């Protein structure tokens, strides 16, 4: 904000939105949340179909990388993992958010390292598939925690012991 100097101008436009919504009270926030959660619950079945398609696409992308290293494909995997991170918790799968974040971080940290560890990318995808097939919605599930720790350790090792690999997963929460 170093440019907020004498040449700055401050404008206060009329608040047309306040006038538009008026003074009518809306539903309680708890009601809004309950209604939204109910609507999102109805979408969960659809989500499970979408996410399985995404996992299939991820597997195909990794398979193509085994044939030929292609930065564009690796970037696509990164973007897909980021999308999974952004949606999992919304649909009641917080572990998908965590592992999506973890996979994104693993690739983003060093794409060359990621391209040399395709089995580890597969392991992330396998874990997502497990979460879905077992419908593991509890992020503290002991079995899932064990696998997550294994993924963390493997990522750390792949990146030469970089401790940032381990911290990436937890910050997704």
């Amino acid at each position: 904000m170093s440019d907020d100097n004498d040449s700055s101008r401050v404008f206060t436009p009329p608040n047309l939105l306040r006038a538009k919504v008026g003074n009518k009270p809306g539903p309680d926030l708890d009601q809004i949340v309950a209604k939204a959660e109910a609507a999102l619950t109805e979408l969960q079945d659809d989500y499970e179909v979408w996410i399985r398609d995404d996992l299939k696409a991820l597997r195909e992308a990794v398979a193509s990388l085994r044939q030929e290293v292609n930065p564009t494909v690796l970037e696509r995997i990164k973007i897909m993992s980021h999308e999974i991170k952004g949606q999992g918790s919304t649909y009641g799968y917080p572990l998908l958010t965590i592992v999506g974040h973890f996979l994104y971080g693993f690739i983003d940290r060093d794409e060359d390292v990621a391209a040399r560890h395709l089995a580890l990318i597969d392991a992330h995808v396998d874990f997502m598939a497990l979460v879905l097939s077992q419908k593991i919605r509890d992020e503290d599930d002991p079995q899932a925690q064990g696998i997550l720790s294994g993924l963390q350790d493997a990522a750390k090792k792949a990146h030469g012991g970089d401790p940032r690999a381990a911290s990436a997963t937890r910050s997704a929460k």
Partner: protein
Amino acid sequence: MTISLDALSVLVVDDNKHMHSVVKAILNSMRIKNVRFSDNAADAFMEMRQWHPDIIITDWAMQPLDGLDFVRLVRKGADSPNPYVPIILLTGHTEMCRVIEARDTGVNEILAKPISIKSLYTRIAAIVQSPRPFVKTKNYFGPCRRRGTNLNYKGPERRANEITF
């Protein structure tokens, strides 16, 4: 008590159609039914010409133009239909440097994915009830980036010119 938001119109810009469903479900729970969707920034900009949304909710990670490119178009484009429209940025990138980049591009509010229903309501309500003034400097045009008033500030007022219209 909340305020009724049912009169508002919202344009959602996201290249992921699953997110359209998520945002629609949440907006509908707030009784906001007048919602349109674009799956890329260029289409959204065109949509703004035909239809005038009260609020825009945009994703950051999109191609070929990303969410911040879209914000720049809206805020600074010579042919922008509404440079003052409130914009909420959705992003999975919550690192401080990214938040600062988004703020300095001219977004009103930033919301982390996965979306919190309460957080989205709170941000829309803030836009309606307590809109921030706009600031134009040599390098920036957008909502005021100052979130609070420093009562201990002793220096000169750097914003000498304030205009209400």
